[in-house]
Structure formats: C-alpha cells, structure tokens
C-alpha cells in the first residue's frame, strides 16, 4: 500500500520550460512522484513527495525546486528554536 502524508503541503515545483527530459529525477525519486509527458517531466503524485531533495540536487538544469529537510519532530523543533533565537 502506498502511504501518503498530509494533503497539499509539499513545496515541490518544476519549471517545465527548462526541463531537458533526462529523467534523472525519475531515477532518484523514492516515491514515484514524476512521469514523462511529451518529453518533459511532470508531477503526478505531489502528496507522495517526502521532500528528500534528490530530484532537485540531481537536475542538471536546475529545473526543480523543493524545500528539503528531515521530516521528523526533533529536527523541526531544533529548527524552530534556532529561528526563535535568531528573532
């Protein structure tokens, strides 16, 4: 069974204009979020994205944007405390 986290929360986006169709994002995505459509990649399962950032890091033309990080309570609390200190 494919598990998905919260609806419409993920920060993933693609610039279809710059996509060269190398399919690297498809090869590295652990949750089958992308699909080739007319020689360019498209997002077909956004809610399945866990924001690991593998696609963005391996895109040779920098066409993918995702705010990646570790999806756990402790890293999120640490990050919030750091932000709180900075303010």
């Amino acid at each position, binding site marked *: *069974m*494919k*598990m*998905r*986290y*919260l*609806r419409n*929360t*993920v*920060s993933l986006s693609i610039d279809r204009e710059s996509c060269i169709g190398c399919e*690297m994002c*498809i*090869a*590295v*995505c*652990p*949750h*089958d979020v992308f699909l080739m459509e007319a020689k360019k990649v498209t997002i077909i399962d956004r809610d*399945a*994205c*866990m*924001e*690991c*950032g*593998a696609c963005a*890091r*391996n895109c*040779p033309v920098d066409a993918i944007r995702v*705010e*990646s*990080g*570790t*999806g*756990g*309570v*402790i*890293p*999120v*609390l640490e990050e*919030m405390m750091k932000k709180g200190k900075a303010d």
Partner: protein
Amino acid sequence: MTSAAGLPWVQRVKETPVGEVPIVRTRLELRDRLQNFLVRLGINRERYAVPPGLYGIGDPDADSPVLVTSNYKLTLDALRKELAAVTCWLLVLDTHGINVWCAAGKRTFSTTEIVGRLEATRLEALVRHRTLVLPQLGASGVAAHLVHKTTGFRVVYGPVRARDIPAFFHNKMKKDRDMRTVRFPLRDRLVLIPLELVLALLVLVAGFLLVAAADWILHGILDFGTAFRDFVPFLGAVLAGCVLVPVLLPLIPVRSFALKGLIVGILLAALIEWAYSPSLVDGIATTVLILSTSSLFALFFTGSTTFTSVSGVRREVRIAFPVLIPLLVASILVGLISKLVALHHIS
C-alpha cells in the same frame, strides 16, 4: 588499509595496483547478527562504523563494477549479504557510521566525500571503466552531474534495496518502478519499534516515579502495586503511540500522525475507562492524558518513517504542540487534584 585487514568480516587481502584491498565475506556470522540485533535496541548504535576506503567482493579485477556505500556496519552487512553472486569493488564513504539515506540528508554521503574518497583510494588506477553505482537513496546528498564533471566518473543510481542489486546488474543496470520505490511494510516498521521504546524508557520511568511519589504523599505509604495501577493509563498511551501506531500505520484512516495517535488513544481510553470505571473528573483527566500522550508519541514517529515531508511535520508541530502540551500538563494536574479531593472526602 591494513587496519581493515584484521577485521573478522574480512576474508582475505588482495594485492592490487593501488595497494592491498580487503575482500569481505558475504555471509554474516553469529557475531555480526548479535551486534546488529543490539544496535536495533540502541546499544553501541553511535559507534557502529567500519573504516572507510576500498573493499572487494569475490575476486574483482579492472573491469568489475564499483558500488558506493556508507560506513555504517549495519548498512555494509545489509549490502554484502546480498552480493554473494556479484563480483565487485566497494567504495565505502566516511559517513560517520550513519546509513546511506540519513547520511545523504546530513550531507556526509555527498559529492565532496565521493570526490575526496576517489582521490584517496586512486580508484582511477584500479579500474578501466569510469562508472560508479550509487545506492538510489544516496541521491539526496550527491549531484551526479557534478561528480562526473569533477572526476570523470559517471554516476548510475542503483536500486533502493540491496537485495535487488543482482537483478539490477542482470538487467544491464536498468531499474523498474519496483526497484526505485521506497515502501514501508510492516516488517520495516517492526524493526524500528525497539528503539522507539528504548527512547521512551526515560519518559516511562519518570512517569512511574511521579505516580509513585504522588501516591506516597497522598496515602502515606509507598505501594508499588497501587502506583503501577495508576501508571497503566500512561504506559498504555506511550505504547499506543510507539507500538500500535507504527504497526497499524496504513490502516488508521487519516494522514496526520497526531490524529492517528488520537484515534488509537480514543480506543485505549475507552478500554481503560471500562476497566477502571473512575470518577467523572478522574475519568476526564485520564482520557485527556491518554489522548495527548498517544498523539504526541505518534507524532514523534514521523522521524522514523520513509514518507513524511518536513513541510508536513512543521505544519503538524505548529498545530498540535500548542494544544497537546497544555492538555498533557493540565490532565496531570487535574488527576493529582482529584485524588487529593477524593482523599479529603474519605478522611
């Protein structure tokens, strides 16, 4: 490389143009299995590393493929036990004893580390080809095109799971959908539970001592039987969050982990109310304690899953923490006060 030669899981040492390379065994021994079992309980987990560098499997030569991995012993064991039929080189990166996926997230399994390790091992003098096979889950720390530009080595991302490697090579290094997809089956969830419990142990001990101390103060005698009875709702709530939620994960029909914990908590609270039939105030306090505790512990399990995004966890923490923490504290206080009042009525 001589430091690795004496390790029990190294079979022999092979002379190569770049020096001696340890050849590792592909069968785990009792010692490996025992140590791996203890690591799952959190014992020696922080120091379970192997020396980084070059290793071999079988009798590799200049045309054998190169597989890149992390220097966590649990990872190396998971890899080598699947490679009995695969002759290859292993390039073990220094990820400070962390597994591939987490190390990629922490950027120790990285482009920089690969470039440095290639230089240190002089791999280019050992193999004729220019291809590195990386575990797919290393991709969040590595930019394949930058490795290629810097070193001349082409990066191919292999399957997610080590057990698919033989099929991957057999299939001319092509992956199907199954090989590149991460799932989170019951078996994978179960191995995580012992560590969740070990981490929760401190909270459980603190909770029990608090209950025992409260009973002692209220009744004037230290009775562990009564204390344990009063402790059961909290113990149950922790187990609901740490065990039941991971086990039932895909079956609980909501996506939010805080809500998953809440649903399991409601079932547990109903059971406890039925078994204990407490007074109204005590019953409400116990229910709120169970719901907030199981919800919090369920939320903490997001850190161990394979599919929760940081944006999602941020959203849950922002919504759930300001509600759950005050409720938890209030339920403990009300529970104590209701006991005090009940005692006052009796005397």
